[in-house]
Structure formats: structure tokens, C-alpha cells
């Protein structure tokens, strides 16, 4: 068995500054060895540990889709030691990736169902992966209507702007982009918080699943909206964050009751969470 703590060596191919505050950067990484790319076989919703020798590791959701070949992609918010160091690295630098880790959104169970994706702020990373994956011709037929509500503080804080615009133009996905506030006359989409826009657009809960990722405050106010729309807790899915080290359920720090978020999560249904201690 492979040593589960040993990262695959990767090279930074490209770094894209996503947001106007320059706190979010997307890293496109390529594996130094092609067999490692094959071994790193992932499913949307999973995460990986990004490893920088001398700095440490950080768990980051995989933002690329398995249908995109030749690279993997992560969007990193600059908060502390490792993420700040990462932000100062350059294309061509060598680092490591360990994973894929954790569980994923329930793609098998959601087959034949409508999928409502609700995202806020920079928690849109694995949601991007999911959208790209579902829109791929190989998978689009497996799912019904795809509805997306995605919001950020202002237009400059949205991730993946070019793709958002491209998805807007498609007719096989319904996009509801929103910002908390803006004085930008170019902004032609919604203005308002994600829960309010979700309520206004009222995506049907019939035969549908909702995947909700965002800051805790957004989740807190979106859940009652979804309940009113008729989504039962078993069909509301979210992805959680905890401080992590090992990422494989061994170092003991990321548990919520019996569940290790790194291994038994990060994806949970609200039904499952309701049976766990409220400590996250």
C-alpha cells in the first residue's frame, strides 16, 4: 500500500488572481510523473492536501473536474502560514499534492434528479468542479435541470468570472448570479444575499437535490428557505471544514462526534448532521 502521507510532486503551471482584493488565487498544477496523474483519480466534492516543503500542508477542495485532463486546479484564500506562502510562489515552482481525500457529492444517488447548487463566496471551488463535470457531454444526460445560485460580496469577488458568463449563455443550466451590493452599472444580474435570491427564484424541490456551500452565516439562512421550498434534510447536502492535518482519519482533530470530516466527510447531508453534536 502506498504511504498515504507522501505527496505527489507537482509543478505550478499557472497562477490566476481571481478576486479584486487579490486574496484568492487559482493554482493550476501538473504532475511531474504521469503515473501519479493516473493514480490521482478523483470525484467532484473531494479535496487534497497541498504540500509545500518547509511550510506544511493545507486541505483544499479540488476545483477542477475529472473531465479536465492534464492538470488539477485549486483556488486558495490567503489566511495564514501556508496559504500566504503559496500566494507568493511562482509558475514553475515545485510543490506536492496528497489525495484525493474525503468523500464526494452523491453523484450516483442524484442520477435522474434535478440539481440545485447554492454557493457563496470562495466556497464555490468544488461546486465549479461539479458544474463542469455535470455539463460534460458524458454526464449531462444523467441529471435533470441544473440550477445555480452563486453570490459574492460584489462583482469583483466572484470566482471563475469567464466561466460564469459562459454558463449564463447556455440553455442547459440556469444561472442566478448575485452580489450583496454594487454600484457597478455593468452588473446586469441580481443584487441581494444568497438566501433571499434563493427564496425569490424558488427552485423546485420536486425530484431535486440541493448542494449548499458557503460561509456559515449564508448556510444558516439558506437552510430554512430550502425547507420552505420542500427540500427534506436527506436531500440537502453540504461540505464542511475543520482544521486538518493528516486528512485520512488518523490524527484525531477533525471529528464531529463519531465522524471524521476528512475521511467520513467533508460532504454530509443535513439529515446526517442533525444526528451529530453541533460542534463545527
Amino acid at each position, binding site marked *: 500500500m502506498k504511504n498515504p502521507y507522501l505527496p505527489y510532486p507537482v509543478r505550478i503551471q499557472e497562477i490566476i488572481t481571481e478576486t479584486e482584493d487579490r486574496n484568492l488565487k487559482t493554482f493550476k498544477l501538473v504532475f511531474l510523473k504521469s503515473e501519479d496523474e493516473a493514480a490521482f483519480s478523483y470525484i467532484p466534492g473531494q479535496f487534497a492536501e497541498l504540500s509545500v*516543503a518547509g511550510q506544511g500542508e493545507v486541505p483544499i477542495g479540488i476545483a477542477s473536474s475529472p473531465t479536465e485532463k492534464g492538470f488539477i486546479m485549486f483556488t486558495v484564500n490567503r489566511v495564514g502560514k501556508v496559504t500566504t506562502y503559496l500566494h507568493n510562489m511562482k509558475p514553475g515552482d515545485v510543490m506536492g499534492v496528497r489525495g484525493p481525500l474525503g468523500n464526494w457529492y452523491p453523484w450516483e444517488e442524484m442520477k435522474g434528479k434535478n440539481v440545485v447548487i447554492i454557493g457563496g463566496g470562495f466556497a464555490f471551488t468544488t461546486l465549479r468542479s461539479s458544474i463542469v463535470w455535470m455539463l460534460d457531454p458524458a454526464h449531462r444526460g444523467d441529471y435533470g435541470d441544473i440550477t445555480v445560485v452563486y453570490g459574492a460580496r460584489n462583482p469583483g469577488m466572484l470566482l471563475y468570472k469567464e466561466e460564469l458568463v459562459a454558463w449564463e449563455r447556455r440553455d442547459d443550466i440556469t444561472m442566478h448570479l448575485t452580489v450583496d451590493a454594487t454600484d457597478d452599472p455593468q452588473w446586469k444580474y441580481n443584487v441581494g444575499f444568497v438566501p433571499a435570491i434563493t427564496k425569490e427564484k424558488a427552485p423546485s424541490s420536486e425530484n431535486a437535490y440541493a448542494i449548499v456551500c458557503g460561509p456559515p452565516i449564508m448556510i444558516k439562512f439558506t437552510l430554512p428557505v430550502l425547507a420552505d421550498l420542500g427540500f427534506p434534510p436527506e436531500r440537502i447536502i453540504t461540505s464542511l471544514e*475543520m*482544521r486538518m492535518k493528516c486528512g485520512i482519519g488518523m490524527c484525531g482533530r477533525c*471529528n464531529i*462526534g463519531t465522524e471524521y470530516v476528512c475521511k467520513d466527510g467533508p460532504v454530509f447531508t443535513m439529515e446526517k448532521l442533525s444526528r451529530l453534536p453541533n460542534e463545527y
Partner: protein
Amino acid sequence: MLKIFVTKDNLPNLVGRLMDGATVLGPVKEGEAHRFRPLKKAADLDLSYQNSRLSPKDLVHPHSDAMFAFSLKKDDPEAGILKELPRSADKRLVLGIRPCDAKAFRLVDVNFLTDTYRDPWWEARREATVLVGLGCSRPCRSCFCTAVGTGPFDETALDVLMTELEDGYLLKAVTEKGEALLRDAPQAEAATDERMQKAEGIAEEAARKISKPFVTEPIKDKPQTELFSAEFWEEVQFACINCGTCTYLCPTCWCFDIQDEVHGEEGVRLRLWDSCMFPLFTLHGSGHNPRNQKLQRVRQRFMHKFKYYVDKYGDGPACVGCGRCVQYCPVNIDIRRVVAMMSASCVCPT
């Protein structure tokens, strides 16, 4: 399985023989306490000990352990790439370990050796280690092993069980590894019926001396959310100073941290013991901390051992009743009392 008897006078010869084939670790007196150390000579071994202050968990899960090495040299084409270090699997024999401490290794196996991932350091050291245990004929007042599914002469996690008789030791092989050890023991005498009967008597007498301050069964039936919101945590946590002594000494506390350490242009990725008693253990980069309060951390320790572990693995509890946390907690928080509250099965005299 093979049983032999070795007189006290002849024991050093047996220890000497064992030292030829493996590194032998045993209880050695250091200052006022005993600690498991590699024996330099047979006479270092002190089997008259009651138990070691630090649990022997560090023999398999060291306090600090290098995982990988890396270079940061500008001209090194491999700079920044983590390299595996040789994992030495030197044969080791732990002599005189208490049955409870050996059982702790079993309980922690469940965490490190899973169907999806296997921890290579834990696995290599576990496989290379033979456990020759010494039954407890004189248990401490703080022992409660029989309440948590083990006991002073529990052989289940051992390769050989030793029982001290007046004039020597009865050694009983429990596994094939243990049998191989005893087969060519020097100056072995027969484990006569009389000796075996004596050993049984000693084991029964010891078990009788150990208190059973709680029953764990009722805890299984309570939902984790109910125990989690119980009011008694407020009282339990009150005196705790979050020093981490309990988790440091505990043979089943395995939590660890991972840190990079750089010297000049070379570095290592280390793993180091950590503790759920420290706020940093769960602090997010954003500043949010799900276990910010002392109550939350104290509760996590007891809930993990007696509820989460049991529910998750259908085994346990993750406690062997060694009583170290009872003996060394500076504010006398007594796990026996806490578990009794969790199971609401009895209230111990305080």
C-alpha cells in the same frame, strides 16, 4: 501453547538470551519513576515496578518522529520534493509490559490500520515488536481495568504472559511468536500443575482487588447528541486547567500534529504528539474554533473514549483502566466518576 518456569536467579540469563536476538525494552527506574527503555544489561530491568509513569505508547508511536526529508537547495533538481526515510523494522521485544498497556496497542490499531489507509510507521513498529507482558499481582488503587474490558492478567494483546510466583516466573506463550521465544529459553523448568494453579490463584486474587466503579453498557444506548448536551459537563470541566497531562500519559491517546522543520537548506516533516485539550488543536485559519471553550475540549476527551470510539468501531471503550490520568491530574479530575455520570449507572464516592 508452551508454558515454562524460570527461577528468579535464572531470569537474567533468559533476558540475556532475548537480548541476543532483539532490542529488549523494559521498565527501568529513572529517578522516582519507571520508564520503558532499551536494556543495556539484564540487571537494568526492574520487574518489581508497579507501572511506568509514561505509558509505553511511545515505543510504537514516538513523541516526535521524522516522516519525510527534503532539500531546499537552489541547485538541487529534487528540491521541494518529499522523500521517504528508511523505516527501520529492527526486531524489538518489550519485556514486562502491563496487560492493560498492551491492550491499548490493540485499541489504537483500529485507528492506524484501516481498510482504506494504513499508517506505515505504526504498522512497521507494531509488526516488529513482541510483547512479553507481566500480570499485575499488586494492582494500584486507581486501576479499573476490569470495568473497561481488560484485566490484570488479560493475555489477549500479548505474545507471552508472565506471572510472578514466589521463587520465579511462569511464562505462558499466547501466540506463535511467543511460543518461538520460549522454545529455546535457557534453564527453563517445567510449568508444573502446582505452579499453574498458584498462578491462577494470583490472577483471581488480583482481579478481585480491582474496583469496578461503573458499567459502560448504558452509554451505548444513549444517542451521542444526548450525552453531548448533558449538564454534568459543566461540573466536570470546572477545575480542569487544560494542562494536557491526561492525554500525554494515556496509552490510548494517539492524536498527533504534523509540522515541517527546516535547518539551513535541509528539512524534515515531523509528526508530534498533540492533544485535544489544547485550543490550537482545532483552530481554523479564519480564527473560528469549534472547540474554543474548555468545556468542549474536556467533553471531547471523554466522549471520544467512551462514546464516539465505541459507536464508530463497535469495540472499546478506548480506555484500559490504567489509572494514570487519575493519579496525575493536578486537579483530581477522576475519569471513573465522569464515566459513571455518562452511564448514570452509579455515583462513586468522591
